[in-house]
């Protein structure tokens, strides 16, 4: 870890450090995240330029450059990678030691910037003696709405997060999921353009998680820009495929998962194929897996094949394949299956998930 903090950066300036790739948001072409048509002079919604932040001697965020205009962006990274610090910097609770952050051209620390930002913090502390409705309403009035307007907005956001019917109880007795909803509700009050959500999905049971994901999609469809940090990579993948990966205080890569994965040329795809049963009589008493492995090796894009031990309780044999050029490989695999009558119980690319990409990137960093 220490070598990471000081060495690789000196010659590179502000380029985000990745394992050999440099993707910043506006370079990528992605239909979901195409820029909203804005005048060229309009300031981007969020602009972080070479932002660094220390906590005493420990570096929290290291030379982060990020630009957001619309859509949902997931911020992922291991615990302690600096996600929360970055979000606090963006929402103006911390000030960068180096670099600057602007929201619509205003410095993030300023009041004007906060009018554009809704923040759902990680903390779990509220004004515990209030009811959920009272809390949201006072937050609305602190935004400067009149009593009537505040009440209207409170009802609207409570409805939206699914708390309208149960916001009367005191916050003290709320479960984790209800707290998350209230936190989200207060962030939506002043209808901000940029929503910064720190771990909104943690501690929520599966049902709630689905509702939230739906809600986030709706918000994005309304033209909001969402920056969501989460460990729940699987959930995040359902929500968006535009992610920013953080590691050791840096943004390691920005882009869609597939884009990032495809640029990792030095790591061929790792695919696991479980084949069921023994082979037919004409091939002798050979395992089906052996036959498949032999067939796979003949394909152009396959770099290597490995037979794994079958799990004790199942009647399948796993085969591990390393392949380049995924498009062509899957095409040929389909033909192989259809022509040679394999029964595939599982076909899984092990390392194109966000998590796997994350793993590669991190290893690239620490190497």
């Amino acid at each position, binding site marked *: 870890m220490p070598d990471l903090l000081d060495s690789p950066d000196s010659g590179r300036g502000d380029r985000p450090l990745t394992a050999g790739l440099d993707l910043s948001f506006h370079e990528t072409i992605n239909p979901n995240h195409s820029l909203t048509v804005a005048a060229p002079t309009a300031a981007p919604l969020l602009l972080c330029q070479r932002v660094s932040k220390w906590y005493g001697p420990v570096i929290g965020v290291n030379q982060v450059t990020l630009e957001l205009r619309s859509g949902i962006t997931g911020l992922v990274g291991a615990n302690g990678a600096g996600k929360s610090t970055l979000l606090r910097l963006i*929402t*103006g*609770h*911390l*000030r960068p030691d180096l670099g600057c952050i602007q929201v619509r051209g205003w410095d993030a620390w300023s*009041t*004007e910037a*906060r*009018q554009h*930002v809704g*923040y759902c*913090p990680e*903390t779990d*502390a*509220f*004004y*515990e*003696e209030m009811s959920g409705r009272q809390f949201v309403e*006072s*937050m609305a*009035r*602190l*935004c*400067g*709405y*009149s009593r009537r307007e505040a009440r209207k907005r409170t009802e609207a956001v409570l409805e939206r997060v699914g708390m309208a019917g149960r916001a009367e109880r005191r916050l003290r007795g709320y479960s984790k999921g209800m707290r998350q909803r209230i936190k989200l509700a*207060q962030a939506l009050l*002043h209808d901000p353009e940029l929503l910064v959500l720190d771990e909104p999905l943690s501690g929520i049971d599966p049902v709630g998680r689905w509702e939230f994901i739906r809600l986030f999609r709706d918000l994005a469809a309304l033209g909001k820009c969402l920056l969501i940090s989460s460990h729940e990579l699987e959930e995040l993948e359902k929500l968006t495929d535009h992610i920013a990966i953080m590691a050791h205080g840096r943004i390691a890569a920005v882009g869609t998962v597939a884009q990032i994965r495809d640029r990792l040329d030095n790591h061929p795809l790792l695919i696991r194929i479980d084949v069921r049963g023994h082979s037919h009589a004409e091939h002798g008493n050979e395992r089906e897996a052996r036959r498949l492995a032999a067939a796979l090796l003949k394909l152009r894009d396959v770099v290597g094949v490995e037979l794994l031990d079958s799990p004790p309780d199942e009647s399948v044999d796993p085969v591990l394949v390393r392949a380049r050029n995924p498009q062509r490989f899957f095409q040929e695999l389909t033909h192989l299956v259809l022509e040679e009558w394999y029964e595939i119980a599982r076909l899984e690319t092990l390392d194109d998930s966000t998590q796997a990409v994350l793993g590669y990137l991190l290893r690239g960093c620490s190497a």
Partner: protein
Amino acid sequence: MYQSIFFFCFLFSLSFLGVLGVLAVRRAGLSQTRAWCYLVWLSWQRQARASQMVWIAVGLLAFAVALVAIFTAMGAWSMHYWRWPYRQGPTFLQWADEIQIVMSVRDSSASGQGVQAALAAAVRGIVEHSGFAIFSHWGVFLLFLSFLLPLFNLSFATEALGGERESNSLIWLLSRPLPRPAIYLGKFVALLPWTLGLNLGGFGLLCLAGGQPGWLAFRLYWPAVLAATLAFSSLFYLMGAWFRRPAVAAIVYAFFLEVILGNMPGYMKRISIGFYTRCMMFDAASAFGIQPERPDIFLPVEGTTALAVLLGLTIALLGIGTVIFSRTQYQEIV
């Protein structure tokens, strides 16, 4: 004199609120003023919800008032019933009578009688009017000024920001679109009804319970109590913005440093708030013979100077606090 002080205080608070209003309006449009007003109202309410603290304060005040009321009912605020020699001899009132009798018997010349009558009347007068002096010394200076006043200020002023920081709920205020100086000053304004109410109101109640001398004491001393409240509140409030454990820092200041500094000989004591408060009081009641025990050591300043110092201190501390609060990055306490 008192009219002018009163007028000055009134003007000060008006201009203070005016400056706040202008600040809030100037920064961004009308709705921010409304938000600021709501912040004041909300913070005021939230202080009330720290119920343990309010109950202890009110209980303490009630206890003190009840005690004073009992003493008043017993006529304890005068020296009539004091005895000399201690605890055995006749009371001072009896002495006064006796002096008069003895003197009238001993000398019968007209001029001598006149002098003696005057002397006896003076003794009697001092004994009768001793109430105010005793109430001032024990009730006001000792009980109120050196304990209740700093304690009320300390508990409410450190809790205003310190409590929010301790419960990690400051983040909600800071993520609203309100300028940070406005948040700081808004919470201070919300704090004032509590500290002023408890201190001035409490002082009023205490004096009301004190009967005749109490009434006089209130008339003379309230400007000093007001000024001291403002100064103490702004100081302890500043500690809330600065320290992790403002209450402990404040208690060290109020009950240790103030006591030590305030009783130091020479000019050292001039950095304590209590000194100026007492100066204002001595100045106000000088016509009634209230003065420091050793004026040559105490070295009091003029009442108006003391008032100016206290008000200036308040404004300076608020300014410093605003700057500190606007620049500090508040982290959650784990």
